[in-house]
Structure formats: C-alpha cells, structure tokens
C-alpha cells in the first residue's frame, strides 16, 4: 500500500518534471524574432497572419509574438528583460517607454535601417531591399513619423545617439473623440434648424447645456471622460497653459494659476452632476454611454478612437465628433487633440552568438516590422481595431475605403479621426513623463471629487513628480 502510494507520487513528480522541461525547450535564438505587444485575442489572430507570411517568405526565420497584457506590462517586462539581456527584438512602445530604454543604449537606431540599401534573399532567391525609399518615408503621416525622431527625447546624446537617430516608427494610432447621444440632445431641445442635434463644439457650450440636460434626465450625467490625464493635458495644450517640457531644468509646468482655476470650475460641475470620469466610475465610461440617458448613462462621452467599438449601441441615434475646443482670446477655437497609439521600437539582440548574427537579426526584424506597416495589413488591422493606420496609402486600400464608407461606429470614428490630423499633438518624452501623466490624472480626480482643493491637488502632484 505504502509502496504504491510512494510510486504514484514519484510518477507524478517525474511527470511534472517532464512537463517543466518540455516548456523550457530552447529555440534557435539567433533566428527567432521576439515581439512584445499588448494585443488582445482578436488582434493577435490578425498579427498571426503577418507572422505566417513573413515566416513563409524567409524560411528558417521564426517570429515569437508574446502579448504582455497592457502597455505598462510591456514596459515593466522589458525593463526586467534588459537587466538580463533577454529583451525582445521588437515591441509596442510609447515615447516615454523609449526614454527609459534609451538609458541602456540598447535601442536600435532605426535611421540606419531605414536608409539601408543592402539586400537579403527571400525564399525565391529574390533580392529584397532592407530600407525604405524616399516615397515610402513620405507615405507615413508626417506627424506620426516625426514622433520617433531623436530630438523629441531628452539626453539622447549621453547614450551614444546623434541628431539623425530614429528610435521608433508609428504602428497604428488613435486619438480622442466625442461620442454623442444625439437622440437625448434633440429630446432636450438642443437641435439645429434642420432638426439635427446641436452638439457642443466648445467646452463653454457643453457646460451651458448641462443644466437643461440634468433636469431633463434625472439619472444621467452630462459628460463621461475616460482619461483624466488626457483631459488635463489636452486642456493645457488647447489653452497654452503649459504641461511639461523636455528642458532638464524644469520638466513640470502644470502647477499654475490657469490649471488651478480650471480644476475649481470642474469641481463645481461635478457637484452638479455634469461629470463622471473613469476613476470615479471604476470602469470605462463607454459602459455608461451605451446605457442611454434614461438609464443612468452619459450623454456625451470622450474616449479613444481605438475603443470606438465599445461605444456601439442600437438604443439611440449616436454621432461621432471632434472633442470640444477652447475659445481663444482672439475668438478662434483651439481644437488640439491628443495623438496616442502604439509605436514600434527595436532593441538590440542581447544574447546573439556573434556580431554578424546580431546584425542579421536586426535587419530581419526590420523586414518583419515592414510587414506590419504594409498598407494591406494596416488596412485590415485598422478595420478590426478601430485604430487609424500610420501610412497614407492605407486609405487607398479597397477594403479600407469600403470600411470607411460603412455606417458602423468604428468606421465613423476612423473618418472623424482622420479629419483631425492637423490638430494632433504629443507631449514631450523624458524619464518621468509617464509619472507626470499619472499625477495630473490623480490631481484632476482629487480636485473634482472634492477630496483636495485644486491648489493642494496640483501642489501634491507637482511634489510627487519630484518638482521643487
């Protein structure tokens, strides 16, 4: 009896060991491109197609795609990997992540690859040029492309890069959009002469509609804003209040009289029931938008264009618009809107067997990156995700043209987002810029919900960033 129990235990133990070994199987590291992203189920399936195409075209090469949860998870994992030389060859990134990676000098300067005229052979022995042509570079949406240039980063020269260095390429992009419950607006009497809904185009207009709306819909909230931090940063940009700068003397400009006055104003609107934010609600406010005005939802919702599918509903007539702007002293309206979405960064191979292998892997990784930026792939990816493609020629791909002509909320979001290209802005990237983002988001939450006065919330945020 005892013996049989012992032998069973031993067998379980051995089986466990074997499973363990099986999972730790080594792969040919020199010829395996590791790619980290934050893609969910659906998009992974799509990326798989690009990977299959690449692997077929270049026999012997493999791509391992490892999704890591969210953007922050990708960053944390890479920070850990860099310490052991296990970093991926290609990864999703935001500019402030790259600012962090730059400290190791392991970020690949893509300028050299972009301009490379070298070739490699594909499976049909055909020569493929590694770099991009001038037209291909011009095909990128200029604002997106410029984001990856060295000048946008602090201290790059300390880490061995020069002015012409290029740290990242845009993958797909999103911005913030105003999703509107038009039915609710019309019912409350906000309509134009032609009977269409009168949608607020400035913040002042939006707040002036508030009183009527909360009275008409006793459980509804006027505006749901998904990202507190984006709201703060966008207002700073629209009004020129100052948020952060790359200058090392003082990175943090956001603690000023203008922002204070604005937060106080918002706190007033919050008590009137005009505002709900993600932190306040505990989930994306798109969940509130789709509920409708009579059921405790929101009437206006500002969320990512990449998340348009979450705003879809048949309950009422919806519309997609640019977010409200701020009226300037000269009477014009500044409608600046934040540009977000993943970029792609390449990192040096940490454990390649030789320098040649390292160089070759770099080139092949870049070719895989080009697969991801190929207009046909970009079109499909944009259709499925709701993000905007980063190259202009994607807008000519048939499937995408057809998609944009559709009536779905994702299609509408893409069309509206495309018209905003000139209003896009990004904020400076430096070590600590993501900290500033978190801090202003928290400050807004504290001030609006009345936990702290606006002045205290801002001062605390400033101190927490390390400002003096």
């Amino acid at each position: 009896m005892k013996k049989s129990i012992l032998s069973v235990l031993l067998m379980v133990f051995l089986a466990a060991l074997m499973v363990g070994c099986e999972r730790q199987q080594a792969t040919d590291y020199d010829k395996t491109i590791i790619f980290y992203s934050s893609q969910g189920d659906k998009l992974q399936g799509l990326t798989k197609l690009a990977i299959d195409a690449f692997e077929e075209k270049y026999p012997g090469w493999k791509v391992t795609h490892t999704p890591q949860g969210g953007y922050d998870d990708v960053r944390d994992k890479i920070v850990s990997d860099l310490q052991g030389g296990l970093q991926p060859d290609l990864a999703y990134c935001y500019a402030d992540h790259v600012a962090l990676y730059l400290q190791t000098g392991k970020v690949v300067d893509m300028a050299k690859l972009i301009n490379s005229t070298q070739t490699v052979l594909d499976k049909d022995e055909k020569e493929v040029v590694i770099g991009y042509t001038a037209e291909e570079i011009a095909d990128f949406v200029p604002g997106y492309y410029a984001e990856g240039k060295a000048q946008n980063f602090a201290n790059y020269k300390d880490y061995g890069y020069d002015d012409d260095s290029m740290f990242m390429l845009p993958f797909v992009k999103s911005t913030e959009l105003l999703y509107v419950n038009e039915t609710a607006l019309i019912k409350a009497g906000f309509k134009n002469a032609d009977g269409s809904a009168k949608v607020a185009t400035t913040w002042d207009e939006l707040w002036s509609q508030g009183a009527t709306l909360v009275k008409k819909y006793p459980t509804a909230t006027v505006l749901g804003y998904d990202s507190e931090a984006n709201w703060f940063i966008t207002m700073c940009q629209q009004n020129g209040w100052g948020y952060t700068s790359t200058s090392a003397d003082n990175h943090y400009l956001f603690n000023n009289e203008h922002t204070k006055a604005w937060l106080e104003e918002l706190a007033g609107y919050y008590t009137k029931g005009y505002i709900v934010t993600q932190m306040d609600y505990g989930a994306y406010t798109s969940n509130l938008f789709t509920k409708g005005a009579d059921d405790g939802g929101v009437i206006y919702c500002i969320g990512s264009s990449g998340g348009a599918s979450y705003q879809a509903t048949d309950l009422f007539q919806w519309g997609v618009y640019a977010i409200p702007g701020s009226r300037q002293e000269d009477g014009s309206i500044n409608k600046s809107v934040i540009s977000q979405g993943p970029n792609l960064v390449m990192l040096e191979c940490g454990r390649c067997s030789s320098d040649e292998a390292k160089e070759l892997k770099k080139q092949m990784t870049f070719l895989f990156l080009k697969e991801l930026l190929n207009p046909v792939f970009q079109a499909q990816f944009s259709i499925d995700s709701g993000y905007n493609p980063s190259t202009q020629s994607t807008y000519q791909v048939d499937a995408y043209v057809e998609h944009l002509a559709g009536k779905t909320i994702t299609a509408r979001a893409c069309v509206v987002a495309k018209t905003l290209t000139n209003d896009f802005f990004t904020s400076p990237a430096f070590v600590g810029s993501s900290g500033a983002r978190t801090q202003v988001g928290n400050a807004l939450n504290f001030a609006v919900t009345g936990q702290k006065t606006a002045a205290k919330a801002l001062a605390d945020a400033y101190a927490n960033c390390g400002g003096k």
Partner: protein
Amino acid sequence: MSDETLALQNKNNSQKPSSKKFWDFLKSQRGWLFVLPAVVLMAIFTFYPIINAFVGAFKENYQALHLEGEKGYTGWGFENFVRVLKGDTGTGGASFMQCLFNTFVFTFISVPLSTLLALLISVGLTRIKVLQKAYQTVFFLPYLTNALAMGAVFATFFTIVGTSRNVETYGLMNNFLSLFGIKPVDWIGSGSPAWHWGSLNVPWAKYIVAIIYEVWSGLPFKILILFSALQNVNKQYYDAAKIDSASKSTVLWKITAPLISPMLSYLLITGLMGGMKQYSAIVGIFGADMGIDYDMGTMVGYIYQYIEKGATGFAFAGSLLLFAVIMVFTGINLIVSKKTVHY
C-alpha cells in the same frame, strides 16, 4: 641502511596515519554533505542578497537600467536614504512616510484589536462543549484563504457601483449602515473621504476597510494559539478563584490573561511582524496601485514599486529601512515582554 633512509622511512610511517587521519576527518565532516544543498541555495538566495542589499543601498543614483560597461551608479553615500525619507525620489509614486504611516496605522490598530477579539472568542470556545469543534473550524477558515482573492471579496462589500447620479448598488456595508440611518460612504472608490495633514493623506474610510480585513484575517491563527493555551491552563487556578468568589471578568483579566501572557506576547510580536510586511491584502482590496496614487501604500509595497521602476538604490534603501523598523519593534517587544510577561 643510512640514517637518511631511516629518516625517510620514519617519515613515510608517520605519513600513513596522517592521511588516514585526514580521511577520518573528512568522514567526520560528512554532515556537510547533508547540508550542502541548503547551504548552496542559501548562499545564493539568502546570504548574498543580504550583503548586496547593504552594499546597494549606499550606491548613489543606482539604476538597474544603465549603459553596458558602466557601473550604473555615481558614487557612495547616504543619498538614497535621505531621498527616500524626504520623499524626494523624483520618480513619482509612493512616498515613504505615507507608507510608513499607513503601515503603522494598520498594524497598531488591527493587531491589538484582533488579539483581543481572538481572546474573547477563545474564552467563549472553552466555555462550550456542544459544537465546539464546528465553531473552531469556522473560525479557522479565513486562514486558508488567499489574501488577494479574499481582498477582492471584501472590496465588493464596500464598492459603490454606478455614477453619482445613478447608483446601481451601494455595497453590503452601506446597506447595513443605512439600517441605522447612516448615509452611504464611498469606502474605497475614487471619492473616498480623506483628511490631509501636511503631505500626509489620511484616507480614513479606506483605513477602516483595511483594518476590518486585517482583523478578520488575523483571527484564525490567534484563536488557534489562544484556544490551545487556554485549554492548557491548570484547572486548579480556576477552582481557587471560585473559592475566592471572583467574578468572571476578574477571572479573565486577573488570572487567565496573565497565565497565557506568554502566548499573548508571542501573538503580539508575530502580529506586529506580519503587520509590518503587509502588502498583498492591500493589493487585493485596493488594486495594484494601492489606492489612488499609493495613498494606501505599505512599506513592502514601497519596495516593490521601486523594484518595478528600476530605481534599484531606492528599493534597497527602502528594504533596509523596513529591516530597521522591524528590528526596533522586536527590541521594544523583547524588553517590554520581559518586564510584564509571567512565566
């Protein structure tokens, strides 16, 4: 045979026993063979880290991410400690003083509270016969749970779902309080009430939630220990007390408590130690950011936060400070318990 060869022979003779001696010595030391795996593992994962923490804490501007071939730090000194204590790490995130304060509040309220409650429950348990085992089992259950999983359950008791204009559910706690006419409180949400003392946040509603959890999760172990201690207390003492016609509460405080005071002091010490190292329960209830911007951060949470940020020097300094705090409390405990505990 010359003298020389004789001497050589002698030498050889004397060598034989010495090599045998060496062999014997080795044989007598074969215990090392048994402890070798543990020693190797500890050398790598325990002893080296301790030394490294003491060294690393004094490396200024110590960054995990740095250029290859460079040291990753700028010099030696106390700067890490100074900046950690001042909250001037320049990276955002948790402040050490806030974390220290939180940890103290949770520990010094919840540990005595749960010890007292455990004592009362244990006394109650000794006075009943029927269903004693069943009650004992129920009280032990919280021990088996996972802090993160149960943290999530506790969070549901206190979470308000919905917007301020359309609340879907106020949570069980608020429902309960409304029976007494108390208005709903946003216990753990973003609008949770808080006091502010200088740069310190005192999110009292969240504190209450954390303390309730700590008391609940601390009970099983304490009841287990106290109950068995109480059962071992000699019956004679009680009989003597009966003759002196002492009241029940007198018996409890004058006789029982001193008799099990070694156990009480043991529980307080282990409770304090455990309290100083709180982390996962807070994450379970308040999420990975430990409230909003680490306002519910603990000392251990502080350390992990800087590990994840790659600010190695601050993490080391933080862990040494935690060590120092624990040592201080152990010392105080030893002194106090020597004076008051009856053996």
